[in-house]
């Protein structure tokens, strides 16, 4: 941490010591012609060192775009139009990823922040062996020989509990099952010891039994290696299992962030509450005689990012809506210890 002391920059001041990444009021839009898809429209979230922040939200809420913004890997018409992405490097310096030159960004990808994606089937290049793909990553960031890189790659495969690692190095992705490939992706991501791992729905495409394997693995790796994880999912069950902290996204915004127990115990945003109520729960949804009770769905649909309602974007579906919600967008305000909520009426919950 000497670096921090010797070269205090204005950025470090804004980032507490235990925070690895903090996105502040991040706006990422897809601009086509005159229309802008405001996919990320004011995301503020914090990832703490050695912890897992789970980002949940329904499809289209901007989870992936947020993570790609952090990696600066947005597809063509997408642009970060506003906001900061403060990241604390391993040497302690803090940089704003939103404005970092591409060249420096490249050094960060893979080395500082690594990423795994939802589709294990397509995320690996079908034309190269998995060994090559892991070695490529290692040699991009570290001056090691092929031989050393191969040793490291093998160790990585062993780390993610792939049996017969040496043999697997020379296999192609299509020779492996989905779960196996996702392990390879994790090995690849971890091969340069990143400080932050972004996992965009890494288990959604997998079967429950495999999902359990992977979640278990990630939990264990985090414990052993001590990296931070930004875990994106839409499954609240998975969140409950893996997260230390949770950020809930709705229509491009984080509407609530809180430690996981606090969030599930007492959600402080009507959307979060609604989400939890949607999930069938045998104890809750059965009458005493065993007859099923109806679920409690959130009415209506997620608004289109091309056409967001003014004010609180959740207002059209919110049971607590009041006139003010439709005119004015609430900010993300403290609603308890370490608990943030973007609702004017969070006290009511």
């Amino acid at each position, binding site marked *: 941490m000497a670096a921090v002391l010797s070269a205090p920059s204005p950025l470090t001041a804004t980032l507490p010591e235990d925070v690895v990444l903090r996105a502040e009021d991040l706006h990422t839009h897809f601009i086509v012609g005159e229309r802008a898809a405001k996919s990320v429209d004011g995301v503020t979230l914090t990832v703490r060192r050695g912890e897992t922040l789970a980002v949940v939200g329904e499809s289209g809420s901007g989870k992936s775009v947020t993570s790609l913004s952090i990696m600066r890997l947005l597809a063509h018409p997408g642009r970060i139009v506003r906001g900061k992405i403060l990241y604390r490097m391993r040497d302690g310096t803090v940089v704003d990823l939103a404005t970092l030159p591409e060249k420096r960004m490249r050094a960060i*990808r893979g080395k500082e922040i690594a990423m795994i994606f939802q589709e294990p089937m*397509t995320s690996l290049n079908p034309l190269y062996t998995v060994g090559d793909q892991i070695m490529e990553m290692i040699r*991009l960031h570290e001056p090691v020989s092929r031989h050393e890189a191969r040793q490291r790659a093998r160790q990585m495969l062993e780390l993610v509990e792939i049996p017969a690692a040496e043999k697997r190095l020379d296999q192609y992705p299509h020779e492996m099952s989905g779960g196996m490939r996702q392990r390879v992706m994790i090995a690849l991501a971890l091969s340069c010891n990143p400080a932050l791992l972004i996992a965009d729905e890494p288990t959604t495409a997998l079967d429950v039994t495999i999902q359990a394997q992977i979640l278990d693995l990630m939990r264990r790796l985090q414990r052993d290696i001590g990296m931070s994880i930004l875990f994106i999912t839409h499954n609240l069950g998975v969140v409950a299992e893996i997260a230390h902290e949770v950020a809930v996204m709705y229509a491009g915004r984080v509407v609530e962030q809180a430690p996981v127990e606090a969030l599930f115990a007492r959600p402080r945003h009507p959307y979060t509450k609604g989400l939890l109520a949607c999930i069938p729960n045998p104890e809750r949804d059965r009458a005493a005689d065993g007859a099923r009770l109806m679920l409690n769905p959130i009415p209506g649909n997620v608004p289109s990012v091309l056409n967001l309602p003014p004010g609180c974007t959740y207002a059209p579906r919110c049971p607590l809506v009041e006139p003010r919600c439709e005119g004015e967008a609430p900010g993300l305000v403290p609603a308890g210890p370490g608990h943030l909520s973007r609702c004017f009426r969070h006290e009511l919950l």
Partner: protein
Amino acid sequence: MTRYILQRLLGMLAVMFTVVTIVFIIVRIAPGDPAAVMLGPDATPADIAALRTRLGLDQPLVVQYLFFLGQLIKGDLGQSIFLDMPVTRALAERAEPTFFLTLFSILIASAIALPVGILSAYKRGTLFDQTVTTFAMFAASIPSFWLGLVLIQVFAVRLGWFPVAGYGGPDASFLTRLSHLVLPAVALGVVSSALITRFTRASMLDVLNDDYVRTARSKGMGEFRVVMKHAFKNALIPVLTVIGLTAALLVSGAVVTETVFSLPGVGNLVVSAVLRRDYPVIQGALLVIAAIYVLINFGIDMLYILIDPRVRY
């Protein structure tokens, strides 16, 4: 892998067999007695009858077909009426210019198309991309004979850089002969580069959106390497198919181009054969060209083994 090769091999044979059948049918739908047509109007009825027997035309169609197959297996494509030589020899004599013409056109086309297509996909939506796309479409709209005429006017007649026509005399050195191929190869190459460019671009566009390209970027890799190593190699798989197809299409482009440039190639031979009603030559050329097409495709299937581990499996 053996299985893959065997499968392709069987597929190739099946297609070849069908090709032979189609050619057999095409020649049979020609109105009139093939023997009479083959021998020309001067033939006596006795000659015609003799040829009918030799070709088995007096047999039922099935027998004729089997006979035709039998001849083919022996490598006998019949006798040219006009040229008074076996069709195989006539074709062999014309093979060289056509082969080199096709080869050069493909090289020219690929040399233009691959880099331009990649860049255009990479910079999609930019002015460069639009220019390339429009230009490619424009090039694909030019009749190759028209382009040939223009090239002759400019580079052969006005500037005198290249010969106007032909393939050199009897003692023309290999280089001289090749110099005759420059203009036609350019004419063909430019037109077919359009197709390959567009295809490369489309294929690259597909691939550039693929997840593994994003994975490569997330590793912190430079753009050039991402595009060339990860994207292009994948994009190459369908592009190769198109290059193979183009190679075959060029043979047909060659039909026109060879005529414009008076190149004594297979294409020219076909056109002359049609004008001379030299059916055995038409039949033979059709067969050989289709066979080349099938072979090129087979070759490309085999190339896949080198590139794509999935088929190696």
